């Protein structure tokens, strides 16, 4: 294992109870992702890809084992501390964008900044910069319903990076997009990784999407199998 890993899972076990049956997703999962990596996580449905992402984002807790991200052991944090940690450390990108329909693009991007001590002027500057990065500076006042799927996902990416998190967690970020828009989004994620040094963990079913990552982890039956891919 890499000691300078940004993400480290040690002996993580996670299961759930369905009816009378206890179903295990992982029993003893180890993983290390160094800072600056771009990892695609693939695997069949039910293999635990989304559960893994939830564990990395502090949305779910492991039954056993330890999760350390950016030097913080998160599996034992209280809900309140976990919220603050998540706001400062993680950027999320979802399959269905999950923008607030009643807010403009700029207001959606500003949401994570409401959790910081930044003043209004500073927040607006950060929002403008984030929208500039995703190429939507001219759509700041548009509502989600006035934008295409690809544009909405770019707004979601701007929202994910606006507070300058170390780690971007992307759950099927191109699953709802056509090929052209998907390529734009993936290129953007690659650029965020290469140019801004963001560590990206992306769950995907799409091998074409996985090719944008530096490496792919195949999750199946509670274990990883790694493949290095050329971009």
């Amino acid at each position, binding site marked *: 294992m890499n000691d300078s890993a940004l993400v480290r899972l040690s002996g993580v076990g996670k299961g759930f109870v369905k009816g009378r049956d206890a179903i295990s997703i992982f029993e003893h999962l180890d993983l290390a992702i160094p800072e600056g990596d771009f990892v695609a996580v693939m695997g069949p449905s039910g293999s635990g890809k989304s559960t893994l992402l*939830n564990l990395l*984002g502090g*949305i*779910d807790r492991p039954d056993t084992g330890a999760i350390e991200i950016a030097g913080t052991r998160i599996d034992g944090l209280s*809900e*309140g501390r976990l*919220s*603050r940690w*998540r*706001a*400062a450390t993680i950027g*999320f990108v*979802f399959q269905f964008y*999950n923008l*607030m*329909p*009643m*807010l403009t693009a700029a*207001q959606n991007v*500003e*949401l*994570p900044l*409401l*959790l910081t001590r930044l003043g*209004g002027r500073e*927040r607006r500057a950060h929002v403008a910069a984030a929208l500039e990065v995703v190429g939507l500076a001219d759509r700041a006042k548009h509502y989600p319903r006035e934008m295409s799927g690809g544009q909405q996902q770019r707004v979601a990416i701007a*929202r994910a990076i606006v507070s300058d998190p170390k780690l971007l967690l992307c759950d099927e970020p191109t699953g709802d997009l056509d090929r052209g828009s998907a390529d734009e989004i993936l290129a953007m994620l690659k650029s965020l990784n290469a140019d801004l040094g963001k560590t990206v963990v992306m769950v995907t079913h799409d091998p074409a999407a996985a090719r944008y990552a530096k490496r792919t982890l195949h999750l199946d039956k509670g274990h990883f199998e790694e493949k290095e891919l050329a971009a």
Partner: protein
Amino acid sequence: MNDGVLIAKNLFRKKLRAILMIVSILIAFAIFGVLAAFERAFNAGQEVSEDDRLVVVNKINFTQPLPISYFNRIAAVPGVRQVTYANWFGGYYQDPKNFTIVMAVEPATYLDITASDFAYDGAMRERFERTRTGALVGRQLAAKWGWKVGDRIPISSSIFQQKDGSHSWEVEIVGVFDKNKPQVDTNFMLIRWDYFDETRSFGKDTIGWLILKTDSPAINDRVSETIDKMFENSFYETATDTEKAFNKAFMAQLGNVALIVTLVVGAAFVTILMIVGNTMVMAVRERTREIAVLKTLGFSGARVLRLVLGETLLLALIGGGIGIAIAAAITASMRDSLSTFVPNLEVGPGIVLSAVGLMVALGLATGLVPAWNAFRLKIADGMGRG
């Protein structure tokens, strides 16, 4: 943007629903405002009552007369500092529909005893005591009819008539007085009892009630008991009570206004609590995924709880605020026409304060369940459900 903008945006995301909820709340608060204004106006007499003032009326009820001789006998009771008396005139001006409160009073003592409520200056007191047909008119009543000092006006009675069969008494306005307390009104007239008594065709040498001041409120009970015992088993038995109790009993004839207000407003509020509460539960449930997203972004459960409660509070404040404004407009429009029966009808600061308290209570009550649900929502469940 701030949390306030976020709350407002959430509230008005479905404008029709928000407007309907606001309308239902504003109706409740408009009802509350109008009824509370009536209740306060009815009870204003109790609020201005002096602790050391007692009222003596006929034990049968206050519409029955008492002999004028009681005046001197009561004045001699130990602990009684001063006594006066008055008689209901049942007045109107020009037309019976122009109902006017007129009381025939003993000039010197009545002005003394009510001096804490009304501002009678020395000149008008002197003129009233000197002029047998003199009348003192409250500022509101004078303004209503454009009367001024020196005017001679006919004032009629729907109860009494003169010995010549006329129902009208001519009086000369010798003073226009103001009030000393905001709760009292000046929409009435005082004429002299001696003039009234000499000219009326029946009921001679009787009075309607006596008002007395005691040396101290602490001896009120003893004085009341002494007076009522003094006239026990006589043809005119008395009932003596504090002015506050008298005013309360007088208003009770109109029904228990406070109870009516409580029941009507209570029913309206329970209904609205259920409607708005249920709507808010559904509205927040529709946003389960969004709440989960907010939590994913780092919004704590407590902050999400505040956002939802803020939404219901804002809803209640908007609806309630408009409702109270409407109530103020309604009472203002009725004030002049009802000033004789319900003086000082207004949505005053006390009512506004109570309304704000109710708005906060309504906002918290309707938001509690959805806010608690949002607080407890697990992100993974919320993302799955949405």
